[in-house]
């Protein structure tokens, strides 16, 4: 995957973060940040300004939609891909209305997830690849 930017991965479930981060590394993404809840995600976003956020919809306390709203307030241009477990049309529509760039089903095979990510990157970073050079990663 042709992407040199950084990604913030937000999910309350450790196994999902493990799976997604391994998948991202396998796809060639080297700068990955992780957060296990909405509040931490916002802190990490402010500190690291990642190029893309992968955001779980169902989280306890601050859920995905609420976190998305907060992220968009901080940075209206931030690229957010929602992670869903079931394709809940209503939630997806709400997320898109709030400015989410795409959604990915967590139960899809790695191949499909990779393709959806690549599509999002093509659409969002096509013309301004320069923007994708974020700050230095934490390993």
């Amino acid at each position: 995957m042709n992407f040199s930017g950084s990604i913030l991965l937000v999910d309350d479930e450790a196994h999902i973060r493990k799976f997604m981060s391994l998948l991202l590394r396998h796809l060639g993404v080297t700068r990955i940040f992780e957060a296990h809840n909405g509040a931490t995600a916002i802190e990490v976003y402010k500190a690291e300004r990642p190029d893309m956020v992968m955001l779980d919809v169902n989280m306890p306390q601050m859920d995905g939609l609420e976190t998305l709203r907060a992220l968009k307030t901080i940075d209206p241009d931030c690229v957010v891909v929602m992670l869903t477990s079931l394709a809940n049309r209503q939630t997806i529509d709400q997320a898109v209305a709030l400015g989410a760039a795409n959604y990915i089903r967590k139960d899809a095979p790695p191949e499909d997830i990779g393709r959806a990510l690549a599509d999002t990157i093509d659409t969002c970073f096509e013309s301004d690849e320069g923007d994708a050079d974020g700050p230095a990663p934490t390993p």
Partner: protein
Amino acid sequence: MDNPLPNPSIDLKGRRILAVDDDRINLKIIGGILRHEGYEIAEAASGEQALEVYASFQPNLVLLDVMMPGIDGFTTCRTLKRTYGDKCAPVIFVTAKSEAEDVVMGFDAGGVDYLAKPFRPKEVVARIRTHLSNQQLVEQQKHLVDQLSKANAAKDRFLGMCAHDLRNPLSSIRGLAELMDENAIGTLTDEQREIVQTIHGASQSMLQLVNELLDVATIEAGHLKLAKEPTGVVEMLERSVHLANIEAAKKSMRIEMVRLANDPVVEVDRNKIRQVVDNLINNAVKYSPRGSVITVIVHASESHAGFAVRDNGPGIPESERHKLFKDYGRLSAQPTGGEKSTGLGLAICRKIVEAHNGTIAVENIPGRGAEFVVSLPIHR
């Protein structure tokens, strides 16, 4: 179940009977007989009073005199039936003249039985006991049906929740195994690869089972929502046939599609129908011998259109036919390439097709295999 069932042995003591008669002596006689049997009695001296007492006393049975000043017994009965509907207690008419005409009028007014004056105590007791028992049995049955539907709904909810919560961890296990198999964390030894592939295969079949259980729970709970749009039958089949051909090639099989000159149009929820198409074609691949050809045939009539999937498998034994479209109806036939089966696939197909007002059926083709036919109403 949260509520205990009513005592199944029929104990009628304490049941409430409303006796209505303008003749005080009659009320006294009948009250005496019934109290002696252990019933609780309320009395009313007129139709008007009966309606009042009924509301507060909520009797299990009404004994209603026909000839009364003011509103008579028949009118009182009709009013009760109109006010309380199905919940109204059974009404037994009490009449001095047990002429056929009177009796018929009583039944017309909604009475269940009649008693002739002068009373014969044994007859009164026996008839009342019969009606109270009937009523109690009906109540018990209603209660049971109610409890069972609640339990069934709870089961579906539980199944749905359970399946939902199992999906995420299962997806992670499957995904991690797949990534390891693709050397995402370095090259594996042969033994490590075999183990990783076993983990992948097992989690993949569990995920499929969980998804199918979720489908069943969703459909059973009546939450299957269809987003229907006009779709050509070939359009509906093409992608599935293409994808299945890749799998089939692994077993040296191929899938051919037989089209019509004009592609018929049906109204379907494309995602849901794709599930049906995929399932039928995958089944055909699963149960046909290596090297065979599977045919997918488009058909159309005046009112319906659809497709048939013809395989080269063992066919459906007559003795197992009834199990075919039922939940968990796994048959004796074995997949020819070691594939897995949950026994839910065809049941889900039937539910989806029926939700589209369509039909799904199977025929054996002598000496060749089975043919599954799906018919859907044509779009106009």
